[in-house]
């Protein structure tokens, strides 16, 4: 019995190396100038966030009352604020705050969203309906309201508990109010950020679950775990990457917005948001106090949005024109 081999003349050329979809997407991404610019800025900001303390000439808390409200100069690139603190150092530290918040919040939100969404999509039934009901409920509450309520109701008891611990142990850690801020910001932002991930992943899983290759895997007798890990998750992850990139940007904006409104990271810990808030009060006299953090925030937002668009075009080439 001979089986006629396929005549390959007009399909894959022998000289071309195999290209996985991931590599294909990467090629598409690096051809997109805006996306590359966005990626470069994001990498730069991430670098600043990690190595910030070693890059700045001053400590962000050091006050120099002789050099208050100075305009930008060589000594102080972005000038100084009303307490004589170096604005450049504070912006750099603010980058750190923004990245820490964005990464922690997005990680928590993605972990919750992906787990719930994937399970809801894969198992369906009552579990699915419960999760989706819960998701819709969470999404229907206005973000800001939720955060304000959480802050108002939890801040006092937590602060009181920390103070009590301090009295009992005299451990200075419990005097650091920054942890309370972070805890509340992480918690409340994660709470409002996971539902879109859950919805996205559920929709992905639902559509992938019915594809012939998944049915073929079931017909081969593969286990549910193997099917989820090798067939469903890798195919659901593209849109998730796009959404995470956009989500990181959104989280930074949210953190700034909350800090601006006084329900996020509070002074003296620098955040772009509370710096903008401070700068806004005196912007007519000292515009640099507003301009520096606002410009960096704007830059970060634009960078993440370009990167997100680029990833979307690269990972879902047919979805875009």
């Amino acid at each position, binding site marked *: *019995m001979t089986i006629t081999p*396929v005549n390959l003349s007009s399909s*894959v050329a022998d000289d071309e190396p195999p290209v996985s*979809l*991931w590599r294909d997407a990467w090629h598409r991404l690096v051809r997109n100038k805006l996306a590359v610019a966005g990626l470069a800025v994001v990498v730069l900001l991430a670098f600043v966030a990690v190595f910030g303390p070693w890059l700045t000439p001053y400590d962000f808390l050091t006050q120099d009352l002789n050099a208050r409200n100075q305009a930008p100069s060589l000594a102080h690139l972005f000038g100084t604020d009303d307490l004589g603190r170096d604005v450049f150092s504070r912006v750099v530290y603010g980058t750190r705050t923004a990245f820490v918040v964005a990464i922690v919040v997005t990680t928590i939100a993605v972990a919750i969203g992906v787990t719930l969404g994937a399970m809801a999509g894969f198992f369906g039934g009552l579990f699915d309906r419960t999760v989706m009901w819960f998701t819709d409920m969470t999404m229907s509450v206005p973000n800001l309201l939720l955060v304000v309520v959480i802050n108002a109701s939890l801040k006092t008891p937590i602060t009181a508990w920390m103070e009590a611990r301090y009295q009992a142990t005299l451990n200075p850690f419990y005097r650091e109010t920054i942890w309370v801020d972070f805890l509340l910001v992480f918690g409340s932002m994660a709470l409002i950020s996971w539902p879109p991930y859950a919805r996205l992943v559920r929709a992905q899983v639902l559509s992938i679950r019915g594809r*012939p290759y998944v*049915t073929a895997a079931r017909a*081969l*007798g593969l286990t549910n775990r193997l099917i989820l890990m090798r067939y469903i998750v890798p*195919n659901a992850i593209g849109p998730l990457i796009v959404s995470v990139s956009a989500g990181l940007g959104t989280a930074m904006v949210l953190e700034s917005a909350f800090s601006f409104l006084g329900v996020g990271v509070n002074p003296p810990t620098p955040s772009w948001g509370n710096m903008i808030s401070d700068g806004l009060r005196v912007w007519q006299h000292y515009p640099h106090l507003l301009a520096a953090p606002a410009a960096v925030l704007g830059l970060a937002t634009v960078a993440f949005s370009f990167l997100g668009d680029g990833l979307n075009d690269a990972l879902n080439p047919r979805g875009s024109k």
Partner: protein
Amino acid sequence: MAAEPLIKVENLVKHFVVRLGAFGERGATVYAVDDVNFDIFAGETLSLVGESGCGKSTTGFTLLNLQKATSGKVIFQGENIVSLDEKRMRPYRRELQIVFQDPYSTLNPRMTIGEVVGEPILFHKLATKAELPERVSRLLGDVGLPARFAQRYPHELSGGQRQRVAIARALACQPKFIVCDEAISALDVSVQAQIINLLLDLQEKYGLTYLFIAHDLAVVRHISDRVGVMYLGRLAELATREQLFSNPLHPYTKALLSAVPEADPELEKTRQRQILVGDVPSPLSPPAGCRFHTRCPIAMDKCRAVVPEWREVVTGHHVACHAVDMGTAG
């Protein structure tokens, strides 16, 4: 055909409960497969034909226990496999395989061809990791693809090549039985013939049994030993290839055969066509009695009330029609 069948399908039923209305407030039942009986013999090609939505794929899926049967039995190696849970089903999975229609979604786009074909071999421990590359290239050779394709990804292949990979994946666990669900329908005419030949070659080489689901009657006539005609969830007629194509008994089979165009202008000029009026009724509310009565040119009062019995009129020729019972058809 006196031999014991490889697979025995007895009173197989599959209903889907769907939600209708804007808020899914109304439940309704889709009678996708209703009381279907047939045997599949080792080494044969049994085809299922019928219009879209008549339940061919659902029969294939429930038969493989990929969808839970509502009731009925599928006996394979003495076991009613549709009653088994996934774990107890696993040993049988290896022997019962499926190939799908759409070459573009049949392969996991994130896996190389080598991984696609190798996975079932490793999972069912049919070879060691060291033997794997050799096994994979032999399988690819079996379906007419060069071994170097193992490094390729599905999106780098043409539709026909992907369909070959899907066949290689099904062959990988050395099955006895393969459901081909419209496996050639999405392919170009010139490539279809390649895949049909391949399926025939493999059947001869490995003694495979096929359940061949298709709507192209010319192809079905070419490759089948026996053919079953489905209408709205029920089998209307089941017979050998010769019986069915030269002496169709059921009015629906007759209409179906007469609707198939032949690639011959002279013949087409003189041919008398019997064109059915109307559409297939909705499987949500199939007609009572004989489900074909709304379109049947010879429907009688009895047809509207009584479900015709599924019986063997001549050895190997099954049909469900009152007119045939009374000798008024044909």
